[in-house]
């Protein structure tokens, strides 16, 4: 155990400032490396393996992954302190899956609160609830992915079944109420039908306290990264949904549930 939370070490692959789609206000996202799922459409394939990866981009070497400390991450994150103060923004952990590095994630969120900024995580909640529970005292917003209610299909497209995820969603709702926000990547061939989206929305609507759901249209911006990593892109040939389709799902959600539905982040 490190003496101070600022000395806790962890592995990240990026920090993005001025994130305005992942939690309230202006935020910085810290991307942690390593994920439990292998979603076929994942736009950050470099986030999946915990191992540090060396690739070549335009003939130049590039390294995905960096071991660092909470202190070093917070130095970067707090460069935008004034923006967080004005906008109610702060720190968001994403990934990968921050639950894969619980000690590091807990320390980062605790550091965020020490600095007086809001904290959020973007997570699949695919972990024993005890692991998640450790983060909650320092967490303001949980942006949780629910990708499908059908476990078979979930497993087929993400590599994991969804029982644990749905179970955790219920427990989290009981603890966080409206600070739990459900996010759904809308992916053609996987869940991009009104009935599948509505099934997720109804599940979310039944969670006590949960008020918001975000539908995130599938995009192909991560495609080139697969090539660099020397991996096949399982979604090759799948085109993003036509404009208006996801907007239509949003309307259906608004009609069929009491949730506030937002297109995009």
């Amino acid at each position, binding site marked *: 155990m490190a003496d101070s939370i600022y000395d806790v070490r962890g592995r990240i692959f990026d920090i*993005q*400032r*001025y*994130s*305005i*789609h*992942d939690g*309230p*206000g*202006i935020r910085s*996202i810290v991307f942690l490396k390593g994920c439990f799922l292998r979603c076929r459409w994942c*736009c950050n394939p470099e986030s999946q393996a915990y191992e540090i990866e060396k690739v070549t981009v335009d003939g*130049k070497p590039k390294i995905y992954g960096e071991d660092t400390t909470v202190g070093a991450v917070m130095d970067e994150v707090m*460069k*935008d302190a*004034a*923006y967080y*103060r*004005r*906008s109610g*923004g702060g720190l968001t952990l994403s990934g990968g899956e921050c639950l894969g590095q619980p000690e590091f994630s807990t320390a980062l969120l605790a550091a965020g609160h020490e600095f007086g900024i809001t904290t959020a995580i973007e997570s699949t909640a695919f972990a024993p609830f005890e692991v998640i529970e450790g983060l909650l005292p320092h967490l303001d917003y949980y942006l949780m992915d629910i990708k499908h209610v059908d476990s078979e299909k979930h497993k087929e497209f993400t590599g994991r079944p969804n029982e644990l995820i749905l179970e955790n969603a219920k427990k989290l709702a009981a603890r966080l109420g409206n600070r739990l926000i459900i996010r759904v990547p809308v992916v053609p061939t996987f869940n991009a039908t009104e009935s599948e989206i509505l099934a997720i929305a109804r599940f979310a609507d039944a969670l006590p306290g949960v008020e918001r759901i975000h539908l995130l249209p599938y995009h192909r*911006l991560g495609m080139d990264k697969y090539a660099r990593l020397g991996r096949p892109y399982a979604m090759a040939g799948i085109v993003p949904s036509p404009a208006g389709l996801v907007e239509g799902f949003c309307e259906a959600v608004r009609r069929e549930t009491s949730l506030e539905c*937002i297109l*995009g982040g």
Partner: protein
Amino acid sequence: MEKIKEYSVPVTERVVRLREALYAQMPRIEGARATLVTESYRETEALPIITRRALAFRHIMEKLPIAIHEDELIVGSATLRPRSSQIFPEFSVNWIEGEFETLATRPADPFEIDEPTKEAIRRANAYFRGKTTSELAASYMAPETLTAIEHNIFTAGNYFYNGVGHVTVHYDWVLKDGFLGIRHRAEEALSALSVSDGDYCKRSEFLRAVIISCDAVITYAGRYAALAEEKAKAERDATRRAELTKIAEVCRRVPANGARSFYEACQAVWFVQLVLQIESSGHSISPGRYDQYMYPYYEADLRAGKITSEAAQELIDCFWVKLNDMNKCRDAASAIGFAGYGMFQNLIVGGQDAEGRDATNALSFMCLEASMHVPLPQPSLSVRVWNGTPDAFMMKAAELMRTGIGLPAYYNDEVIIPALMSRGATLPEARGYNIIGCVEPQVPGKTDGWHDAAFFNMCRPLELVFSNGMDAGVQVGIRTGELRDLDTYEKFFDAYCRQQEYLIGLMVNADNAIDVAHAERCPLPFLSSMVEDCIGKGKSVQEGGAIYNFTGPQGFGIANIADGLYAIRRLVYEEKLVTLTEFAEALRENYGKPLPAEYVYPAVLARAEELRRAGKRVGEAEIAAMVKEGMNGTSDKMKAARYQKLLDRIAELPKFGNDDDEIDALAREAAYTYTRPLEKFKNPRGGSYQAGLYPVSANVPLGGQTGATPDGRLAHTPVADGVSPGAGRDSHGPTAAANSVAKLDHTIASNGTLYNMKFHPSALAGRAGLQNFVSLIRTYFENKGMHVQFNVVSRETLLDAQKNPEKYKTLVVRVAGYSALFTTLSRSLQDDIINRTEQAGAK
């Protein structure tokens, strides 16, 4: 004071029609003013210049053709055809005749011109040749200054060839007392003079010129009244007949007398705005704090039940349309620098009153609404922001921004007020500041700021360090030493500072020469009648009649200098990857890369000249080899590889704009190399120099005249605009970029700084998007940024507009301190805007 939370009214059909009518025809040149000014000058050769100016002004006011267009409520045009331009031969003559044949087809700001107009201009020019401000100014410049101008170190073209403009007059005086009131003041001052005073002759002549000018503008308004009456008689439509009758009544009343209603106030302000531009050819004549000086008239009418907010909105919209009716034809080179028919009539809303209370009012909101109703480049709408600016107002401004029009620009009271006080303004005066032209703050009604005095390309002195002051074989700069002797970074930096300071001195010489020429040949009595304290001092603005006098030339290229100095420090002095001499060779050979096609021949000619002067023989074979190398880049593979390695290494270095303290500190120092030396110089009006850091759009053409720079920028490509990071180099998002920019010392650049940001529309989506956008602006200002402006247009839209200009006739974009119609910009400036880093917010 009444505050509006949510304000929105629909645009009227009249305003839509007026807007469309403006763009129905191509702008043209009209010759009437050139003819009239020549007629008058011929008659008055024996008289003092100030009197000649007043009489010429009167002749123009009496004879300039006038028109009242369909649907207009606010009347008065400088030309018969909308958006057209008069010519001002008293300032310069030489450029236009040479450009007659290309005016209609040139890439930037074309104008039609017909044969009779050409003939009228030829006749006017024949008279004025040898008598212009431009020629007198050139004769006053030192030979080394002319050499520096010839070698594109700086350009003083703005006032060298045109009127000065760049002023905000006391609109409130005209609203309150009219020109009869101002005339009365001049008469009183005249009667207070003693004929035995040492300066009686000049003072009395000036005051009489003011009186002539006041009468002249009243005559001009009277002509509109008469025309409106005449039109009313012929009008069959009862509604329009009533409107015309009303116009006649208003023009009889103002601007002779004080305004009694909001309508009269609108018309009076437009007459002032219009006639100032007819008198002087200056641009950036800025209406200033319109929401403040107009508010009492609006409020009184509203209270008395004489007006509704809808009717007032329509009048404001009509004023907006008129601001777009004003145009100006510049020479081809200047047209590129001010591309987009820029008139820079800056109108600012919000901010504080003299006592430091928030001054945002209903009109502030209505002005934002007007730019939604009339989404055109004029006015250059600005918003003052301070800690007490209401959020509702910031949100309304952000909504306007989201339309993609590039308006409003934002200004930070918390930096500008202290900056103006550091230049001598009192606290109440500084709190009343407005913006001139692009970004230049000043005390309205009391200042002759000479704000756009010159563009100084900070990259050129750096080039001259590499060549020991030589450019194309001519000693343009000073000798700062052989490269091998600059064996420490400190020596190199010192050489840059000395080179820069010397060239700044030459620029000052150029500006002062032009300044004197304006005072001697083109003093402006009408303008001076509304600027404090010309009547009291008995002299024109051009002779130092204003209370505050400045000269503000602009430096630009800070990002290139900061990134370049950093590269030199690291690669030459720390890592010793290359020697300074090798670096110089790489720059001279453009890192082995091809030159843009249009620059190959000029570059080869300059190089040949340099070799010849060095005593070398340059034959056809050498020329052919140089052309080939210019077209294709170096043919030496070893060299190409070496240069590529250097470029790659430069690319890896930190760059200004990413919130990196080390390089940001270097940028701050780089800006000081321009802003500090300038402060010690004085101008002929008894004022001092103050620096601005913005390029208008000159970073594109002047970048075109700049060789490769050590930051990896290739030859003849644009230089960084304003205080913005190099295009595409700010890769850590808008907060990091804004933090870097805020680390510069903006207060010392009291003539204004300009920071361009570009956002993808998705970043402003929804209410949350707007709120975050507002937070970004407020935080940049909290960090002591001075100005920021935005383009909110997607890259795809702009690319499509380049391909299909006909579909985007009214696409307005932010250029630099002003907005312009995208399709009217030259291709290279369009590319520059497209290449600015686009911030979408992290995905």
